[in-house]
């Protein structure tokens, strides 16, 4: 299986994270090309490329850009989502660390297309090192006159600022991120209006993920058709995924849209299979909020549409593998506890439901569960967000769904394990619930 590299094509080349190194490997040539096109033509190229957002929802990027109203006299903004905090996801940080100028060049291309003169990059507060690399890259590009008062010598002012968060998962949700950028606590806004119409400071704002935008230079280097062809009908290009949990070689990999979950876990160039004697029991395919899959479902391609029939999602590409000796109750408890802690507290079902589910799961895991607890668990989850299909949530933002879907999918697909905990009044895995690599050594 040969995956053509796109986003990672220059990673590891000498000096790639400096302006000089980036330029040596063709850097900022794509921006030159894009600037020769009218903004509408740049947008048309992005549409043609079939690029879809890599932040979680897989929304077509060109389509999102086209929602910015043409006749609104207010300034427009581009906001880059570098909050990367969905459990299981570690890819954007490597773009910032290895190739920060690819993001900056992508930003310049996007701002030209959108008519945006200010871009804020919202990086999670914990990104001390990635943020330092990015700050240096911004300073270099500004000093070199790539952006600033002029954009590569053109009369187009562009200012790029990095803003660092301060430890709140919810600020990855786009409207919470905008609130945070406005200097407030991260409380998601009701949609509509969508940010493209009314976003930062009430102005039209496009929010895109780091990987989405860092892909643009390659698209303009090699052409939208080339990029579209790499992927499938509806998803252009390749994508980054993070493989974690139980497998021989966890890590961040660029995969094709045809690569399957099974390839990712077992192929020599990726996960290199399971430790001796262990088999896959469960896989979370798109960050911890994505409904869990069983080993039988590993044939699915890592592409946005392919997950629909399985009622799961490609999400943020965080793939977490659990082997046959992992306790599903304990795993789910960890996931649910996270969403309980990160709920912003605005909506009752999310604020009250998440801690409630966490307590029920702890009770079952510790052998104190009763059959009615399992029913209650499903009832609470379903009142936050019915499933399947995905996307029916009853809350202001999708964190509600993010916390409910794991509960519903784990309980549905691994019910006997929950029942066994309740019937035997103990965890069948005892004090070893974490599988092959669960011991701290």
């Amino acid at each position: 299986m040969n995956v053509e590299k796109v986003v990672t094509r220059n990673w590891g080349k000498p000096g790639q994270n400096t302006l000089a190194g980036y330029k040596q490997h063709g850097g900022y040539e794509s921006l030159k090309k894009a600037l020769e096109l009218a903004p509408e033509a740049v947008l048309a190229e992005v549409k043609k490329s079939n690029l879809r957002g890599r932040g979680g929802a897989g929304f077509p990027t060109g389509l999102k850009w086209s929602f910015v109203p043409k006749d609104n006299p207010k300034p427009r903004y581009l906001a880059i989502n570098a909050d990367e905090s969905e459990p299981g996801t570690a890819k954007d940080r490597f773009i910032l660390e290895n190739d920060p100028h690819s993001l900056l060049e992508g930003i310049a291309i996007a701002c030209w297309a959108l008519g945006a003169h200010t871009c804020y990059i919202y990086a999670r507060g914990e990104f001390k090192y990635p943020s330092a690399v990015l700050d240096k890259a911004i300073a270099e590009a500004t000093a070199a006159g790539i952006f600033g008062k002029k954009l590569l010598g053109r009369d187009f002012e562009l200012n790029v600022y990095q803003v660092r968060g301060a430890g709140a998962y919810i600020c990855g949700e786009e409207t919470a991120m905008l609130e945070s950028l406005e200097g407030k606590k991260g409380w998601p806004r009701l949609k509509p209006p969508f940010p493209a119409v009314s976003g930062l400071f009430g102005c039209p704002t496009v929010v895109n993920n780091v990987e989405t935008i860092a892909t643009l230079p390659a698209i303009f280097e090699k052409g939208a058709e080339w990029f579209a062809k790499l992927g499938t009908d509806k998803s252009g290009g390749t994508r980054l995924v993070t493989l974690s949990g139980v497998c021989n070689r966890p890590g961040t990999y660029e995969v094709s849209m045809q690569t399957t979950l099974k390839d990712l876990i077992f192929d020599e160039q990726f996960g290199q299979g399971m430790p001796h004697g262990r088999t896959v029991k469960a896989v979370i395919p798109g960050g911890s909020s994505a409904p869990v899959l069983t080993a039988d479902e590993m044939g699915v391609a890592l592409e946005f549409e392919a997950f629909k029939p399985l009622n799961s999602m490609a999400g943020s590409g965080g793939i977490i593998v659990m082997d046959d000796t992992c306790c599903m109750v304990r795993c789910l408890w960890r996931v649910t506890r996270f969403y309980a802690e990160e709920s912003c507290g605005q909506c009752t079902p999310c604020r009250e439901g998440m801690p409630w589910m966490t307590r029920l799961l702890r009770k079952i895991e510790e052998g104190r569960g009763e059959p009615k607890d399992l029913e209650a668990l499903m009832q609470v989850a379903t009142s936050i967000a019915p499933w399947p299909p995905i996307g029916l949530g009853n809350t202001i933002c999708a964190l509600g769904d993010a916390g409910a879907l794991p509960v519903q999918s784990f309980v549905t697909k691994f019910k006997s394990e929950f029942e066994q905990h309740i019937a035997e009044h103990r965890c069948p895995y005892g004090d070893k619930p974490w599988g092959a690599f669960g011991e701290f050594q």
Partner: protein
Amino acid sequence: MSDAVAFTPEELKKLDAGLSELLGHYPVDRKRAAMLPALRLLQEIKGWCTPEGMKHVADKLQTTVERAYEVATFYVMFHTQKPGKYVIDVCTNLSCALRGAEGMLKHLEVKLGTQAGTNGDKFFLRETECLASCGTAPCFQINEDHHENLTKEKVDKLLETLV
């Protein structure tokens, strides 16, 4: 960093210079937008978000001190109480748990003689969000410095440097 809560003249000069630069990143009628970077700067200078510092920041951002508190208390990386000398944030989310994070947390509790969640003079050990090290688990941060692919040996070596 002086230990006193009150600003020294140098600290105040540094804060004000930083704030006026930050304010240049936002529209003139949106000064409050600089709140997160401003509090970060304050915390870099004082070690935590002191009441006096938050009042100062709020004034410069032309907003009320309540707004500063609201933000400082919402985000876990802001300290509204003086934290221990070393803040250790341990990821115990699923990917890390599958790679020994629960055992690592216990190891830290024993070694440091503290319990996760308790602030002490020297150590403030906490469980935290996923730190984007899922493929390089387990991990933690010490005063925001990131450490990954941790083993007992590595952890013990790191702890020795915390004097």
